[in-house]
């Protein structure tokens, strides 16, 4: 059987991976909540964040914190820009039009990166003291793991404060629930949507840093899988709900780590397949997710 330290180690791993999924899932979920848009370009913003962080690490002497924060700000801006240029002209259009556009935006971001920086993977090396595994008690983890979890939790706490304590944050929840009523209340929905994209994109950039640091290399298509998996996380938690996205992110992180850690090693190559099989299963037994707020309409 599995030893207790081994199990503890898996929990730690699940926590780190779950933090990344949760951060990406939040952005998908708030945008879906308001616009009913499955933003396929969201994962690509994670990629842009990772590339920006790499550029800062390689070319500047800025402290590490800046290499996390600056990409968040820039990518937040990029997210707003994408919304302004590609999605806003489609306000009121059928959902499928926005969906197709988000596929196109994803293609533009990926191919733009290929065109300017080539499709070759690049090494993403953080300072040794960040990624070295340290043994504390029975489990080992890197400083990056600790920072990732702490940062994710911190950002989620800030977001929670934002959506419960500020005018725009409350309006964001109101928009997610009933966009027309929100407009009738005098809420400038374009402004709220811009905020939603900025916040979601910034969180994706933070996740991009963590993802790149964890795997040590980045490439233009790296955002596809975490983006898609984060959507699974959002669906598990109940898409449209911010606490749901957080919960779903961590559940998915744990599920994936446990799948690899506790099942026969021959199966570990199937981990990505497992994630999407899980999606199908969740859709089968609890189609609205665990903490659903979005009432799903047929058709």
């Amino acid at each position, binding site marked *: 059987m599995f030893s207790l330290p081994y199990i503890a180690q898996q929990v730690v791993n699940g926590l780190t991976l779950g933090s990344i999924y949760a951060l990406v899932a939040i952005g998908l979920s708030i945008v879906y909540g308001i616009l009913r848009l499955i933003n396929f370009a969201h994962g690509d913003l994670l990629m842009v964040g990772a590339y920006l962080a790499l550029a800062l690490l390689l070319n500047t002497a800025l402290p590490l914190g800046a290499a996390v924060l600056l990409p968040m700000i820039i990518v937040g801006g990029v997210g707003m820009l994408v919304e302004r240029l590609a999605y806003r002209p489609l306000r009121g259009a059928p959902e499928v039009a926005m969906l197709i556009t988000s596929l196109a935006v994803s293609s533009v971001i990926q191919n733009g990166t290929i065109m300017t920086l080539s499709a070759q993977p690049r090494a993403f090396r953080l300072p040794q003291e960040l990624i070295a595994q340290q043994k504390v008690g029975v489990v080992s983890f890197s400083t990056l793991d600790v920072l990732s979890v702490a940062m994710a939790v911190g950002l989620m706490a800030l977001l929670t404060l934002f959506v419960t304590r500020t005018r725009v944050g409350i309006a964001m*929840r109101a928009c997610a*629930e*009933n966009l*027309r009523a*929100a*407009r*009738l*209340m005098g*809420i*400038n929905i374009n402004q709220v949507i811009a905020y939603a994209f900025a916040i979601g994109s910034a969180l994706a950039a933070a996740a991009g840093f963590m993802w790149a640091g964890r795997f040590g290399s980045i490439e233009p298509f790296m955002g596809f899988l975490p983006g898609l998996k984060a959507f699974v996380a959002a669906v598990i938690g109940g898409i449209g709900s911010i606490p749901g996205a957080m919960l779903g992110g961590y559940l998915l992180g744990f599920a994936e780590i446990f799948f690899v850690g506790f099942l026969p090693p021959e199966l570990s190559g199937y981990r990505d397949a497992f994630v999407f099989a899980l999606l199908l299963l969740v859709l089968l037994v609890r189609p609205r997710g665990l903490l659903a707020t979005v009432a799903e309409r047929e058709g």
Partner: protein
Amino acid sequence: MLLEVENLSVYYDSIQALKGISLQVDEGELVTIVGSNGAGKTTTLLTISGILRPRRGTVRFQGQDITRLAPHEIVRRGISHCPEGRQIFTGLTVMENLLMGAYHRQDRDQVARDLAWVQELFPILAARRRQLAGTLSGGEQQMLAIARALMSCPKVLLLDEPSLGLAPMLVDTIFEVIQQLCAQGVTILLVEQNAYQALRVADRAYVLETGVIKLSGPAQELARNEEVKKAYLGG
């Protein structure tokens, strides 16, 4: 004239919902639009608030053309719309709902005073201000919807079917509140299927039928009109 609608034509795709209607609301008036289901009453209100775009015609407010303004601009100018079916934010608390009504306002003191005022108007909301709005009863939700609309400090309040789906006793309460608001000087444009109650409280009324205004005049007069009686007041 505070609010003037002129020759308004609205289409849903190729179906014409409003066929060139005109109406006016003067300062301090309680005006009602009565008509059966599908006559275009809600469409009229949604067009005034900027949610729907008319193909022809204009909406003027305080003499200015507001036809093409975004909904939030229209609210800012002083038109507040309490929508059909209440449409409160069920996942927000009662207090958060009220604050959303005052979203565009910067005058914190006045907002605080209005908060006190609407809670005085609807004491039940004060008692439940920390509760999620979805947990309120139907009547309480309607009161919240009206209170939320009042929080934008409107010059005109558009009320869409406030009595819809309420028990008869609650209907009376809601109409009392409407009269009370009117007495306090709030201008109201009321849309109702409950023509009996609406004509009882209103100053003037319009009868809307399949996108056309069939009759208009003082509410008392219309209440005595034979056609109106037959069609809307059950004989």
